[in-house]
């Protein structure tokens, strides 16, 4: 970690897309950028802070590069959200040689408490970018279809 990266605060954000929504994770490491992007994914649906970490769901995906891996990672989360009717407040991510091993922490959708705005259909290759910036921090982003 160089002196510049020491000052980076991991964060997530949404960026505009006319019909859908862009999600971006920023972190000191690639894994942290993925984890932040996962939080941005939840934030499309609800405030991640309203979601309790009641259950742990393991996620594992493998791909040929970190960009395809990122889309696969998000789609694996979307699949678990859809089939388990869950939202995730936090995802612990480890990445090694284009393989993600993650634990997603969350609970079942509670409509009254979460006020879910919209469901996510899938992650796309639009505005897809995963990489390290000059100051050393990592970005992982793409547009998701809602």
């Amino acid at each position, binding site marked *: 970690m160089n002196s510049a990266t020491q000052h980076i605060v991991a964060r997530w954000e949404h960026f505009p897309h006319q*019909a859908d929504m862009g999600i971006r994770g920023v972190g000191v490491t690639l894994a942290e950028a993925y984890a932040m992007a996962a939080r941005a994914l939840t934030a499309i649906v609800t405030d991640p802070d309203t979601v309790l970490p009641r259950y742990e769901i393991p996620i594992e995906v493998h791909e040929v590069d970190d960009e395809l891996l990122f889309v696969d990672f998000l789609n694996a989360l979307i699949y678990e959200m859809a*089939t388990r009717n869950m939202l995730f407040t936090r995802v612990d991510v480890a990445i090694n040689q284009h393989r993600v091993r993650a634990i997603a922490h969350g609970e*079942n959708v509670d409509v009254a408490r979460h006020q879910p705005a919209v469901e996510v259909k899938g992650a796309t290759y639009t505005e897809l970018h995963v990489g390290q910036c000059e100051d050393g921090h990592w970005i992982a982003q793409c547009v998701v279809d809602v």
Partner: protein
Amino acid sequence: MDRGQFTRLDEYAWRVEPFGAMRVPVIIYASERLIDDMDQKVFEQATNVATLPGIVKASYAMPDAHWGYGFPIGGVAAFDPLEDGVVSAGGVGFDISCGVRTLTTGLTRDDILPVQRQLADMLYYSVPAGVGSTGAIHLNNKEMDAMLSGGARWAVEQGYGHNEDLQRIEEQGCMSGAVPAEVSEHAKKRQRAEMGTLGSGNHYLEVQQVTDIYAPQAAQVFGLKTGDVLVSIHCGSRGLGHQIGTEFLKKMALAASEHGITLPDRELACAPINSAVGQSYLGAMRAGINCALANRQIITHLTRHAFSELLPHADLRLLYDVSHNTCKLEEHEVDGRKRRLFVHRKGATRAYGPGHPEVPDAYRAVGQPVLVGGTMGTASYILVGAAGSESLSFGSACHGAGRAMSRHQATRQWRGRELVDQLAERGILIRSPSTRGVAEEAPGAYKDVTAVIEATAAAGLAGKVARLEPLIVVKG
């Protein structure tokens, strides 16, 4: 967009001559104002589509075109399998066969007003809507495959609706060529609890009143009068379609280079129609179309039941059902020769004109009903396919208002609760589990649907028949 990029063909048609790797021109149908307001990404995406192998005539964009992923939303493109043409998962989209169906009710506004609030509540509780909502119908493996093969026809056989409904649905309610075995177990699992659910986002169920009739003859054929009450349902193939789209987007992106296809944008993922991946996708995508048709049929059944509880004399008959995210094999005349083409419509509606054999008997003299959804605070329109639309756009027209603003911007500008109250003052009752969802779908976040309709009509794609305003809106 800068108008200087286009050659103006007439008042409502704009052309981009082929450059670089483009095989055909781009043609966008829009007014000056709509062109000015369109994102430059529409230009980029429409020109990218024009580079794909086997594309025929032009890459088209409808007046409601906006920035999509790969294809623009509002994009139409036809591909010839005999000229190495492709099929594209990105050209159909994640919500396979998303569409609109409209029902007449035999009721007028005056019948609805005394029970408007109860009807809104009854519909909201009868039709599952929003994130995490589940339907009452759970299909086992055999039933799932039967649904994926049979579409709305399967649903009617299960008791969800009437045989007459099928005559008023594209493909008579059942898309042929569906191959349930090409649909992954993941996709089927994602659908298990979602049959008969509306979804979220821009999907809705509306009770509407006819405010204006523009074409009395077509309106009479469609059974529409001023003051009539209609029901419109906008939704698609739910989780199953989303998963098919997700999986084939990746398969096609990875296989493109093996097929010698250079993708200017990975999201344009496509495969030759006559390849294993292409055929596999067509089988799965057609099953996705059937899922959407079955879903809208089940929601129709739930809607009929809700009406019958409060308004026993209501008679809900299907006017028509159109899908606007599809790829279909169609016969079109190109340069005097009939060709069988795979027509992609991504956020575009089929709009066949009078006499077309695919138009139901009852409507054939005037043309196909084209159902265009607006926003919860403005208007929707019923159009009729125009005679010239086949040569202009492979028989296609617009599908909605089209977003003008991102969801993010919308939530910064509007509060859901205030919108619900403002619309209630105007006599429009909103029912939704999410106030933020309502804010994201604020009428002001969309283009002016009337401008889109005027451009569609003036360009000769479809004619105006009726304008509808919402009385009740159920949003996911």
